[in-house]
C-alpha cells in the first residue's frame, strides 16, 4: 500500500515536465530514424545477420528507443535522489524510517518507469509503427511476456543503479561511476547494436551479463525469438539477475549503514 503510494507520487512528479517529455519523444524518434537507416543498410548487405531479417532489425531499433528512458539506460531515476541524499548526509534520516530503503527507492523508480513507458515508450513506438512499419508482438503470449520482461528489466536496472549510487557512501560523488556504468549498459544491453551480432566469446559474455535483460531479452520476446521453454528460460535469466542484484543492494546497504553510524560519531 505504502509502496503503491510512493510509486504514484513518483509518476506524478515526472508528469509535471510536459515540454521535457515531448522534447524527449522527438529526440528518441530522431535517433530511431538514424539507426533505422543504418540497420537497413546493414541488413541490405547481409539479409540474415544475427538471425534477424530487416523488419526485425528496424523493430529492434524502435524498441530500443522506447526502452531507453523506461529502463534508465544512462542511469538516473530514483537512485539519483539517493546519491544526492548520501552526499548531503540526509540519508541518515532515511535509515531511521520504518521502511526498507531498497523497497522505497524501487517503488519510486517503478513509478518513474511507468510514466516513461506511457510517454517516451509509447511515443516512439507509434512513430516507428507509422513510418517504418515495425512488427507487432509475435503473439498474445509474447505481448504478455514482454510486459513481464519489461518490469524485470526495470528491476535489474534499478538494482545496478542502486549499487552505483551506493558508491557515494565511499566516494561521496557517484558521477564517475555512473558514467562508467552507463557506458557498459549502453554497450552490453544491446542498445548500441543487437547482442545477436556480437561475434564469438564476446557474444557469449554479453548475453550472460545482467545488462542483456535491459533491451536484448525484452526485444527478442517481442520479436517471438523466444517461445516455449526458451521463453521461460529468458524470463528466468532476468529473475536470476534481479534476485542476485537486489540481494547485493541489501548487502551493500548493510555495510554502508555501519559506515554512516561511524561517521555520525
Amino acid at each position, binding site marked *: 500500500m505504502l509502496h503503491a503510494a510512493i510509486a504514484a507520487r513518483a509518476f506524478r512528479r515526472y508528469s509535471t*515536465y510536459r*515540454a*521535457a517529455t*515531448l*522534447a*524527449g519523444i*522527438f*529526440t528518441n524518434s*530522431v*535517433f530511431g530514424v*538514424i*539507426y533505422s*537507416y*543504418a540497420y*537497413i*543498410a*546493414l541488413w541490405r*548487405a*547481409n539479409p540474415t*545477420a*544475427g538471425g534477424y531479417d530487416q523488419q526485425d532489425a528496424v523493430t529492434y531499433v524502435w524498441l530500443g528507443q522506447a526502452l531507453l528512458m523506461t529502463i534508465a539506460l544512462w542511469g538516473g531515476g530514483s537512485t539519483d535522489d539517493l546519491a544526492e541524499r548520501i552526499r548531503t548526509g540526509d540519508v541518515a534520516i532515511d535509515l531511521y524510517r520504518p521502511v526498507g530503503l531498497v523497497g522505497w527507492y524501487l517503488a519510486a523508480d517503478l513509478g518513474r518507469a511507468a510514466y516513461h513507458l506511457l510517454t517516451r515508450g509509447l511515443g516512439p513506438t507509434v512513430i516507428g509503427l507509422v513510418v517504418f512499419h515495425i512488427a507487432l508482438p509475435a503473439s498474445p503470449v509474447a505481448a504478455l511476456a514482454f510486459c513481464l520482461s519489461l518490469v524485470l528489466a526495470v528491476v535489474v536496472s534499478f538494482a545496478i543503479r542502486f549499487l552505483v549510487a551506493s558508491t557515494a557512501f565511499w*566516494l*561521496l*560523488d*557517484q*558521477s*564517475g*561511476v555512473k*558514467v*562508467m556504468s*552507463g*557506458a*557498459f549498459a*549502453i*554497450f552490453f544491453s544491446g542498445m*548500441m*547494436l543487437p547482442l545477436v*551480432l*556480437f*561475434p564469438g566469446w*564476446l557474444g557469449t559474455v554479453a548475453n550472460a551479463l545482467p545488462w542483456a535483460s535491459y533491451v536484448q531479452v525484452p526485444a527478442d520476446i517481442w520479436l517471438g525469438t523466444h517461445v516455449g521453454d526458451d521463453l521461460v528460460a529468458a524470463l528466468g535469466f532476468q529473475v536470476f539477475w534481479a534476485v542476485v542484484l537486489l540481494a547485493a543492494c541489501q548487502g551493500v546497504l548493510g555495510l554502508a549503514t555501519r559506515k554512516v553510524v561511524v561517521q555520525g560519531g
Partner: protein
Amino acid sequence: MAEALAARHLRTYGQIAWLWVRAAWQYPTSFVLLAVGNGLITGLDFVGLWIMFSHLRDLAGFSLQEVALLYGSASLALALADTAIGSVERIGAYIRTGRLDQMMTKPVPLLVQVCADQFTLRRLGRLTQASVVFGWACTHVDWTPARVLVAVSMLVSGALVFFGLFVGFSCIQFWTTDATEFANAFTYGGATVTQYPLSIFPREVMVGLTFVVPVAFVNWYPCLFLLGRDDPFGTPDAFQLASPLAGLVTFGAALLVWRTGVRHYTSTGS
C-alpha cells in the same frame, strides 16, 4: 581593438574554466573515472562499428577504414566543441535557479560565462579516442598538400558547426526552460548521423543535413575530397571545399539566436 577584446574574453574564459578544473579535482577518484568513462563510451562506440563490419564487407560502398575517417573526424570536431562550450546546454537550469540573473550582473559577457561554467576536462576521454581513430584512418588517405589543407579546415569548421548547434539549439531554453533534450536531437543526433556515410540515407535526409542542419559539412563533403570519391548523390564538387563557409554561417547564426534569446529573456524572479 576587437582583437584585444576577444583576447580578453578568451583569458576570462580560461580563468573561469581553470577554476572549475580545480574544483572538480576535489573529488579525484570521480574526476579520473569520469574521464575514463567518457573515453569508454566513445571507445565502445567504435567497437560497435567494428562489430557491424564483422558482418559486412562495406557499408553502402564504404570500407571500415573509410567509415573510421568519417567517424574520427566528426568525433574530433564534436569533442573540441563539446569540451570548449558544452556547458551551454545547461542554461535552462541556470534560468530556473536564477543563476543566469547573477551572471548578468557581472562584467564578463554572458556567453563567455555560460560556456566556461562547470568546465570539465572529462571530455578529454573522447578527444583522445577520436584522435586515435582519426590517426589510424588517416593512414588510408593518399595525402597531397591540398588534402592536408582540407583536413585541417575540416576539423576547425566541424568544431564551429557543432559550436553553432550547441549554442543555437540551447537557446530554445530561453523560451521553454525544461526542453533541454530537444537540442540533443540536433547536437548528438548530428554527431551520430556523421558516423555513417550519408549514402545510407534517402536523398531528402542528405538535403536536410546540407541546407537545414549543415552537419554534412562537418565531415561528409570534406572526407569525399580526402578520399578522392565522387558524391553518390551527385552534388557539386564545390561542396567538398565549402566547410569553412558552413562553419562560419552556423556560428554566426548561433550568435544571432543567442542575442535574440538574451533580449527575450525575462527572469523567473527566483
